[in-house]
């Protein structure tokens, strides 16, 4: 690779939040020695950053456990924190941000109080946004710790009640597994973890982490797929919870990018779960464009449109039609009124 290629690669990786993962890959495959000095320093630097974040996440998780351990609900770690705590492959080289947990819906008020007592405060939101979270979505408003300034998202399910893919959190809690070293903490069952990843990918309106999320999903499929009962269990669970559509879309992208696919003997069953052809092709092409790293080198004329269509669709999936239009209009208005917040350069430590 030419030096300029390296620059481009690093820039794309940074935009996709995959720099540390790229560094991890080079290390694991023994390629680091072959990487030229300049790029290698950037990879190593990115890795140091990710290494630090692991500590910080585990520290957060300890605090969360301490705050909630007396409550009659499992404390289920989701996404990044789960991968790290359970030692799963997507936890390596990861840039963690918030911690997400799932608790029993009936316990939400108690959880919120316990967290408040331990220093997590709900961001002060406008009443509209507060209602958005509490009534329409599947989370308390984001909580921020008053001292550590870290964020915590508390869910009672993995999709909002208004969503096309609504699922009762209780169904997920039945499958969750306690962590061996830390029995008070749990993670979702492998099939649920995979389905959550697929649903999350397609429901969230933001795609700048899309490639990263697909890599995670691929890691999970390869890791869990070693167990012969995994794929049939996955398909059955998808059918039970009504997640056939997002799983289908996600698997198309996984196959396209990584060649990981459902074993042949289960292919027919996947087809019966997957959405009809025309919409599958449309989604596939939209996703293929939208999931590229958010860097100008990856943009085509269609990128903006693809991302916008998927953004709108993600809302359509999460809310009934009579709620979407007013919501999106209001959001756009609020954004244009809000000043773009950034650190003035002269105060950025220099």
């Amino acid at each position, binding site marked *: 690779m030419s030096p300029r290629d390296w620059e481009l690669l690093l820039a794309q990786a940074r935009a996709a939040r995959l720099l540390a993962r790229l560094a991890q890959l080079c290390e694991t495959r023994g390629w680091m020695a072959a990487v030229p000095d300049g790029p290698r320093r*950037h990879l190593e630097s990115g890795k140091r950053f990710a290494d630090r974040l692991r500590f910080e996440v585990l520290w957060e998780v300890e605090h969360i456990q301490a705050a909630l351990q007396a409550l009659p609900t499992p404390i289920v770690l989701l996404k990044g924190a789960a991968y790290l705590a359970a030692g799963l492959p997507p936890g390596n080289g990861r840039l963690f941000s918030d911690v997400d947990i799932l608790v029993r819906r009936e316990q939400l008020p108690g959880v919120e109080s316990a967290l408040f007592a331990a220093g997590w405060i709900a961001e002060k939101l406008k009443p509209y946004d507060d209602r958005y979270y509490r009534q329409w979505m599947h989370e308390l408003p984001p909580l921020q710790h008053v001292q550590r300034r870290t964020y915590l998202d508390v869910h009672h399910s993995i999709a909002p009640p208004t969503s096309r893919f609504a699922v009762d959190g209780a169904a997920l809690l039945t499958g969750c597994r306690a962590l061996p070293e830390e029995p008070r903490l749990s993670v979702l069952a492998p099939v649920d973890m995979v389905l959550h990843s697929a649903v999350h990918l397609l429901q969230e309106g933001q795609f700048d982490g899309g490639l990263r999320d697909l890599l995670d999903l691929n890691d999970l499929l390869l890791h869990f797929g070693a167990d012969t009962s995994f794929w049939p269990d996955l398909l059955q669970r998808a059918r039970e919870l009504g997640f056939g559509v997002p799983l289908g879309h996600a698997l198309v992208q996984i196959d396209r990018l990584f060649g990981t696919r459902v074993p042949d003997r289960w292919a027919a069953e996947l087809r019966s779960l997957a959405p009809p052809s025309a919409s599958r092709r449309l989604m596939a092409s939209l996703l293929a464009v939208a999931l590229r790293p958010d860097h100008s080198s990856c943009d085509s004329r269609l990128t903006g449109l693809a991302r916008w269509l998927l953004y709108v669709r993600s809302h359509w999936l999460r809310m009934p039609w009579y709620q979407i239009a007013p919501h999106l209009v209001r959001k756009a208005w609020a954004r244009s009124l809000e000043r773009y917040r950034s650190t003035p350069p*002269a105060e950025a430590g220099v």
Partner: protein
Amino acid sequence: MILGQLSAGDLARRLAGPGLAIRTGPFSIRMRSGIDSLQTAVALLYDRHSVVDEDAFCDFTLEIVPARGLRRWVRPQVRLFLEGQAPFEPLPREHAFPLLEWSMNWCISAQAHQYLLLHAAVVARAGVAMVLPAPPGSGKSTLCAGLIHRGWRLLSDEMALISLAGGELSALARPVSLKNESVRVIREFAPEAVFSAEARDTSKGTVAHLKPKADDVACMDEPARPRWIVFPRYLRDAPATLAPRPKADAMLELGRNAFNYALLGQTGFEVLGGVISASDCYDFTYSRLDEAIEIFDALFRQHRG
């Protein structure tokens, strides 16, 4: 090739077009900008720096371009773009060169975690270095500018780059940023000093950049060992006073003045500990530059003797 060897036309063409990359210590930085005042400042202040090949790897590519829309012409503004993102608010067009300098510092401080990075000025003499940490307004840049015109070598006026392997300090040898009264003080103190045009009404007041000495640029690859850590404080009419500071206290304060101390965790702690162990730590109060220089010269003679 040295930047000063480029013709004015070539320099302008490269800066406005594909970009011009220079080496500053361990970093290769590509700059792109069609803004006249920025091009003039670069030509003046970086003329002794090596130009990096167009095809070579660069650590950062900084673009300073006019803001879009109305602010391109009405009270014109400029913006930094880094990897397609604009991380900062736009600034007035006249502040384009200070914006470039601040952006370079920001990039290094945010990403160069192969070093322990302290917010400090660093000067050196005969292979040993003095680290001057301090929040803005403490007078460290003025001190730094004064020292480098009285026999000390400039490593950096804003950032101490401490190697994680051996605790040595690396040089950037870039222009020194001075503000307000300091500019006048240094012009008097060192009449031979070369300055960029002054940028007024920045968030720091009036800012000008001082050209690094040719020798300091030529030596940019020579590291220095930490020897003194001096916490300066400018105090009107105060006599120059050097007071020893307990090492443990100095270490805590240095940690607070670091960009990535927490990020580096245990490694950061060990490296910082090593730097502190190897150094004499002082608090320093002063008002007159010449008195300050005398004190530091005495420190150096003590070290030598």
